């Protein structure tokens, strides 16, 4: 809990900074396990229900771990008009998962998001902070394969 304690310290154990605390907690743990929800509640003097209320309100927070690569597929207006739905079908059938799920090998998770603000490059997806634009079905499959290869290489080195 050391890293989280440091965050709580910096945030003054103040419930007014709850969102920032939870964001940092998620950066540390990858998601918000229930133990952390309870811990943050005890450290900020509010009920676990209230912390849970905040954690479930905002789409950024996840209560379950995600895969190595989190695919955020943009479903904003411009992306929608330029074929984002078809790309969702492509990703789902290629990876065998639906929106909100993670592949069995823990490699990919898919989440559709509202708008990434890169509309001129629509359709767009963001994978772990890297933005990919002007997507086509072929490009998407290429990117997924590249990431698979990258993960295998990293796994081999580890």
């Amino acid at each position, binding site marked *: 809990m050391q890293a989280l304690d440091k965050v709580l310290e910096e945030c003054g154990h103040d419930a007014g900074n709850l969102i920032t605390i939870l964001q940092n907690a998620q950066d540390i743990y990858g998601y918000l396990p229930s133990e952390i929800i309870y811990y943050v509640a005890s450290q900020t003097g509010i009920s676990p229900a209230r912390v849970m209320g*905040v954690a479930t309100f905002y*789409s950024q927070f996840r209560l379950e771990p995600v895969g190595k690569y989190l695919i955020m597929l943009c479903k904003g*207006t411009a992306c929608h008009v330029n074929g984002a739905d078809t790309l969702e079908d492509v990703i789902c059938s290629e990876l065998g998962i639906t929106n909100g799920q993670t592949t069995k090998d823990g490699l990919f998770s898919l989440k559709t*998001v509202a*708008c990434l603000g890169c*509309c001129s*490059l629509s359709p767009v997806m963001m994978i772990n902070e890297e*933005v990919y634009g002007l997507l086509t079905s072929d490009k998407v499959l290429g990117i997924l394969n590249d990431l698979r290869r990258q993960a295998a290489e990293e796994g081999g080195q580890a």
Partner: protein
Amino acid sequence: MKIVVGQGSCGVAAGAGKTYEAIRGLMQAQDSFELGSTGCNGMCFLEPIIDIYEGHKLLKRLVNVSADKAALVVDAVRSNDLEKAAELFIKPEDEAFLTQQTRIALRNCGIIDPEDISSYRERDGYKALEKVLTTMTPEEVIEEIKVSGLAGRGGAGFPTWFKWNAARSSPGEEKYLICNADEGDPGAFMDRAVIESDPHNLIEGMMIAAYAIGASEAIVYVRAEYPLAIIHLTKAIEQAREAGFIGKNILGTGFSCEFRYMAGAGAFVCGEETALIESLEGKRGMPRLKPPFPAAAGYKMKPSNINNVETFANVAWIILNGGEKFAAMGTEGSKGTKVFALTGKIRRGGLVEIPMGQTLRHVIFDIGGGIRGDKKMKAVQLGGPSGGCVPENLLDTVIDYKALGATGAIMGSGGMVVMDEDTCMVGMAKFFLDFTSKESCGKCVHCRIGTRRMLEVLTRIVEGNGKEGDIELLEELCYSIKDGALCGLGQTAPNPVLTTIRYFHDEYEAHIREKHCPAAECRDLLMYYIDPDLCKGCTACARKCPADAIEGQVKSVHKIDPAKCIKCGTCLSNCKFGAISVR
């Protein structure tokens, strides 16, 4: 000479980061030219973009500079012969995209280095704040903003001076100045560009406003989905603090104001000012009842003023150039300029800043180059999920709060999504309701349940299960939701439905009565059809059909059974005689 690579989010997504690294890798110790970065100039359709400067003079603009062109660029600059890179020069017709604009909010975007305060100061940066703190009273600042006619650029168009004055007049010593950088409208990225490319302009505008209302803390609430904007903003805040433009006793004038930001966590409703305040307080972003208005009781129930990023981005210019100059542009009721994010089926998409009063047609066709692929324009969506669709025959409507409001749409924050003949308008209404029903905070019945019910009706319609009376049912729902919803999200959620019913009634009727989608977009209503005059009976389609839906003997006309057809399109892509079509 200096090679400046545009590295806003769009540029990086288009490969500008790789181009920058490639150029850096090719530079040698004895090279006399420099390499630098800038933000987004809004010409997104040409990214990655490189500007070649001699001092402050722009020599040439190179476009679509992918990493494999890096060597060409370096060679041209090194040998002082830019013509070598002529294939990358921007075309005059594309240059017109920028030259037809009037940039005030975006005046530094794509020109300065957003990570260097001196780059901002070279272009009169922080001179407005200096002028305000040393020669003007808060009342004089508010008066200047009043003269300018600046109105809220977040979409509501409320007179900015009025809000500042209300916060100033509220009793109390503890006041807050807040910037709404939650830019949640899908299709809008004007604010992202300002924060990424000119963060100091935002800081300066906010500090001027903080002085005007008497705030002791200025806070930016920025959405989490903008990581690069957050990085640049963080750096800018540090630099501004070092230079003494924020903090205690600024410029020795006795005015003190702290500055920080908070990242949102993914909730469209937090763009609503009272929901934003709740979120700033660490709670679920659920709107409050107004009154009291934030000017009287906002953040921590203290007087607070909230404005959009673009509103603040105009302030420093207004102070330095005078409110009258700003008011000289625009129309009677809409002064100054407005930034639009032009996207969708447009040939030249990106950021367009123009004086109010020009027509939608001018923006879409003269600046944006019209529809991609020479398709027919159908409508333009303004104002995101709170806005409406303006049909092609109303494109001569002038960009003005009132004029746009009269069409049923709104000015909105600036999202302008262009649609063509292949876009189904009923599908667009459903798309927006899908969004707003998911983003509804759930506090009030009308929005929470109403948006869901509207979505259900629209879903039935696009799936081919529309009933007689559905349009009337939708209208009834729309008006009661507008009446009963607590905040702007619910009150405006019906707008896309109302405008599409108003202008595209025939599309709704076709979906409901004929189970037909005129734009051929709604998958469940698509009909694949073999033209008997063109069919040669080669059996290619029947053999490839995964659903066994095609019947026919060799050399005789084939037929698709609509009951078995799964509308995958395999037959169409395999027919060598163009005999199969979709409708």
